[in-house]
């Protein structure tokens, strides 16, 4: 599918795309090399060092248990990216399959799937995620399930409408006239033309997943201490907001860094791959 590579080359001329790409690369590097980059481990407590402001020894200061904030932040990127990537993969696969099915066949399959998305959308995503995590209990695995469960519907709706438009294209009709089977038409003629949309959607879904992960962590429903989830760090920092505001500042900046990076990347990709797509 060379034309995707061509579009990527075009995206390469787009400044925001390149900035996004650099941010994504730095994040992946931080997550992979966390053990080498960070000067301390994320759970090493030195109580006498607690609540120190940023200094040469602790670049971003320490928290109430004397743990090095910088090290915890770097290790936190691992959790954010891992949870985000797995959740986005699940919601993409589920959402795309259901979207193709609903869009191509229509009829009762379409009605059932659309009703399911309506039911999912009857609750604000974060509230639904909170409900699921409450039901399943707090853990990172359940966070992944919750995030995927609240986010697949968007993929389904967009892939469905794209499929509906594509299945009436002359080239799809021509394929049917040449004796291609339904499966072949979906996989060879429709899916490749939906893939750019999927790439854009998935890129823009990742920051949402990261924010939701940290929000659940913040509310105590996701990752549990002592894991250095950014949301967990923020929630612990609330108590010391007057004495040590720096503990609160940096995890937020880290989240913004991720979200901004992937948004820029996604928007750059969208402009190159499918400018008319609005998410």
């Amino acid at each position, binding site marked *: 599918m060379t034309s995707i590579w061509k579009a990527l080359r075009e995206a390469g001329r787009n400044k925001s795309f390149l900035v996004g790409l650099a941010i994504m690369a730095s994040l992946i590097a931080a997550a992979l090399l966390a053990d080498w980059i960070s000067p301390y481990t994320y759970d090493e407590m030195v109580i006498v060092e607690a609540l120190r402001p940023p200094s040469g020894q602790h670049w971003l200061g320490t928290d109430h248990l004397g743990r090095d904030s910088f090290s915890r932040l770097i290790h936190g990127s691992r959790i954010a990216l891992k949870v985000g990537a797995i959740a986005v993969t699940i919601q993409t696969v589920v959402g795309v399959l259901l979207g193709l099915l609903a869009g191509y066949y229509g009829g009762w399959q379409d009605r059932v799937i659309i*009703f399911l998305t*309506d*039911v999912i*959308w*009857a*609750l*604000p*995503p*974060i*509230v639904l995620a*909170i*409900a699921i995590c*409450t*039901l399943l209990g707090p853990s990172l695995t359940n966070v992944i399930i919750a995030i995927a469960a609240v986010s697949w519907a968007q993929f389904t709706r967009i892939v469905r409408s794209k499929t509906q438009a594509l299945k009436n294209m002359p080239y799809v009709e021509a394929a049917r006239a040449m004796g291609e089977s339904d499966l072949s038409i979906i996989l060879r003629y429709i899916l490749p033309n939906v893939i750019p949309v999927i790439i854009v959607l998935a890129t823009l879904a990742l*920051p949402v997943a990261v*924010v939701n992960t*940290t*929000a659940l962590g*913040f*509310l*105590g*429903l996701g990752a549990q201490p002592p894991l250095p989830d950014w*949301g967990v760090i*923020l929630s612990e*920092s*609330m108590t010391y*907001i*007057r004495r040590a*505001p720096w503990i*609160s*500042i940096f*995890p*937020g900046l880290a*989240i*913004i860094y991720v*979200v*901004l990076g992937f*948004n*820029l990347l996604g928007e750059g990709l969208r402009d190159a791959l499918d400018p008319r797509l*609005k998410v």
Partner: protein
Amino acid sequence: MNDLTAYAIRRIFQSVFIVLAVTILLFAIMHMMPGDPIQLIDSPRLDEATTAKLRARWGLDKPPVVQYLYWLLNVLKGDLGRSITNGQSVSVLLAARLPATLHITLTALLLQYLVAVPLGLMAGYHQGSVFDRLAVSVTSVLRAIPYFWLGILLIIVFAVSFRLLPVSGYRGFQSLILPVLTLTLPALADTLRLTRSEVLEVLREKHVTTAVAKGLRPQMVLLRHVLRNALVPVTVMFFLSVPWLIGGSVIVETIFAWPGTGRLLWKAISAQDYPVVQGIILLITLLTVISTTIGDILTGLLDPRIRAELGGRVA
């Protein structure tokens, strides 16, 4: 019956089905939770026989479907059960907390649109100008800020460092500022960007060229033909963004100790007070579905094409 009425009625029916589906889900979830209301009473005077009698009286020995119908009937009567922690009626609790939540969400919603739509129109019309580029970069950053951290940041800046505004609680206008800002800023950025891209899209449509060709002045073209058309999706988004705001309010209320339903939800979850959780989720579902239904019907009102398509004849 005209197209719009037919569509509105059908859309309302659809919403009722969606809410029913959510109640079934909620009931199923509560059913799967360990323990039933009788066990939760936790009194030494309960022996086996009394328990069985109570179960029979409350219908807990009936099949789940019948139990669901009983429960639904109670919900329709406004009886959402009692809180496990303090025994208060859930409906009364919710009624007491809802105004505070509506207070910040509706203020945030209005603020968001009053500011974002004119700015988005300007940015779109002057695409590429300094103002536009500034708007795009500021909104890019604003959209990336998570609610809970924005709240913390605002507390640090306004309440801790400068001691200008109250940090938490529900005390008059001043206490409203920080929660509303927290809630509205990211959404404002989204709305501005949506308005901007819709304006850009409409500007490229042929009917705008016609409007220019027939001699309309630029301001008239912009207001009557560009803004009017761009407002259709923007208005829909107004109503569709309500769920996001409600979701955000859960976190914002928690941070600012705002005595609304969101904070109640968080407390109930921490205390595993399931009847309250169930009641709040039901309430939020209702608010969400009502809002999106209004949004959809309003689209039909604003756009004759959609009115005809959704309400009229379909092949």
